């Protein structure tokens, strides 16, 4: 075990933390908005809405994230109409391709979590809210949404951890975040075990903080009694 190398590489690898966190947080926020739209489409009861949403989720959950990343980064650039469109300045950047892919991916996975959360809201609450004279939109915003947030929180915490792990894939399209830097050091020093321990610990610490934060939020929001 080369401890000096571990010490040196630690300071190099932590330089990748801001990029990892940046990509994860931007795509989590965008992905959450997408997930809410997709979840509402799925439970809308209208076939023209629920069927596209179903197939979108099926497509994203059935294919590897790496393939989706290649598809966005290399596949879309093949067409001249995309290269000439106003989207090209965004689509040619690996940074934005990474964010787009992660947004779409977490949007699909989280939409299932949110859908489960919305469906878990007891009918009694909805009826009670109707009896109190609240309209559909107010019922959703004031009753369904807060309960959904609480119910979906544990599963969403897992999704956040999966996002941190998934963000490592953007290193393959040349972005130097934690895994990208770790890989470069491994190929230079040929010390896979040492670098794995350093980079792995950094990921474990990030994920541990997420677990603590989600646990805190869960306690703060209390529990929902269905009856």
């Amino acid at each position: 075990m080369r401890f000096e190398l571990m010490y040196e590489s630690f300071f190099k690898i932590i330089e990748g933390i801001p990029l990892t966190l940046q990509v994860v947080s931007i795509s989590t926020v965008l992905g959450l908005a997408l997930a809410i739209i997709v979840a509402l489409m799925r439970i809308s009861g209208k076939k023209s809405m629920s069927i596209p949403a179903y197939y979108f989720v099926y497509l994203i959950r059935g294919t590897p994230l790496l393939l989706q990343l290649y598809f966005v980064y290399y596949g879309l650039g093949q067409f001249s109409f995309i290269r000439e469109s106003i989207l090209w300045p965004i689509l040619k950047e690996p940074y934005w391709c990474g964010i787009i892919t992660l947004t779409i991916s977490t949007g699909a996975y989280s939409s299932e979590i949110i859908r489960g959360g919305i469906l878990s809201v007891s009918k009694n609450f909805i009826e009670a809210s109707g009896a109190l004279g609240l309209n559909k939109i107010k019922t959703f915003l004031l009753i369904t949404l807060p309960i959904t947030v609480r119910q979906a929180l544990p599963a969403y915490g897992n999704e956040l951890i999966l996002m941190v792990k998934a963000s490592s894939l953007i290193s393959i399209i040349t972005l130097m975040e934690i895994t990208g830097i770790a890989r470069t050091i491994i190929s230079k020093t040929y010390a896979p075990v040492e670098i794995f321990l350093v980079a792995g610990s950094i990921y474990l610490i990030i994920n541990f903080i997420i677990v603590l934060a989600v646990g805190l939020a869960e306690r703060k929001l209390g529990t929902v009694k269905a009856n």
Partner: protein
Amino acid sequence: MFEVFSFGASGWGDEMLMGTLMTVLVSASSLFLGILIGIIFAACKLSNIFILRIIANTYTTIIRGIPELLVIYLLFFGGSGAVMYIAKIFGYDGYIELNAFTIGTIAVGAISGAYSTEVIRGAVNSVHKGQFEAGKTLGLNGYGLYGKVIFPQVARIALPGIGNVWQITLKDTALISVTGLVEIMRQSRIAAGSTHEPFIFYTAAIILYLVITRLSNILFDKAENTYSKGFVSKGVL
């Protein structure tokens, strides 16, 4: 547009098909290895021995908290070294290089094993205590109790969970394309680079993954139905 998928030397059809077979093969062997690991570590998690529980919990925490890509890099760059180190203890001093298939199977198997551990542990826990007691009362122990009474019940309960692990494992094998194993992902990259048609080949890869997913879903559903005979009567739920 579709002539790029013709079979033979001019097209990529046969290569893509071989890549698909490789994906299925490496996924299946990883799942199998993962289940073996899962059985061992689930036993550790359920044992009364403190140190075994610590080891098993450390393993699942690490795998579930660290990106799969890092695990693959660790084994890709360090796998041969580790094997040579172990071989040296046993007196073999030569050079050993593991091929991409072996490394990929071990890496994805190790990842898959962490998920299988939780599935199997949950399944063992959900077997009623009375089954253990009844088995012991009948004088069964060891293989008789666990192999003949508990295992068939665990297998039935664990099957849907293992189906989920299979999906995760199948998708994780795309990551070993970075080590050079020619499966769907790697093959479509090679073809995309050579023909300058990335869109078509990545679309083909998406379809191939969806087909594998669909077919394996059908197989798992069939297996679930077979093994739940006598437990679930259709139309009740």
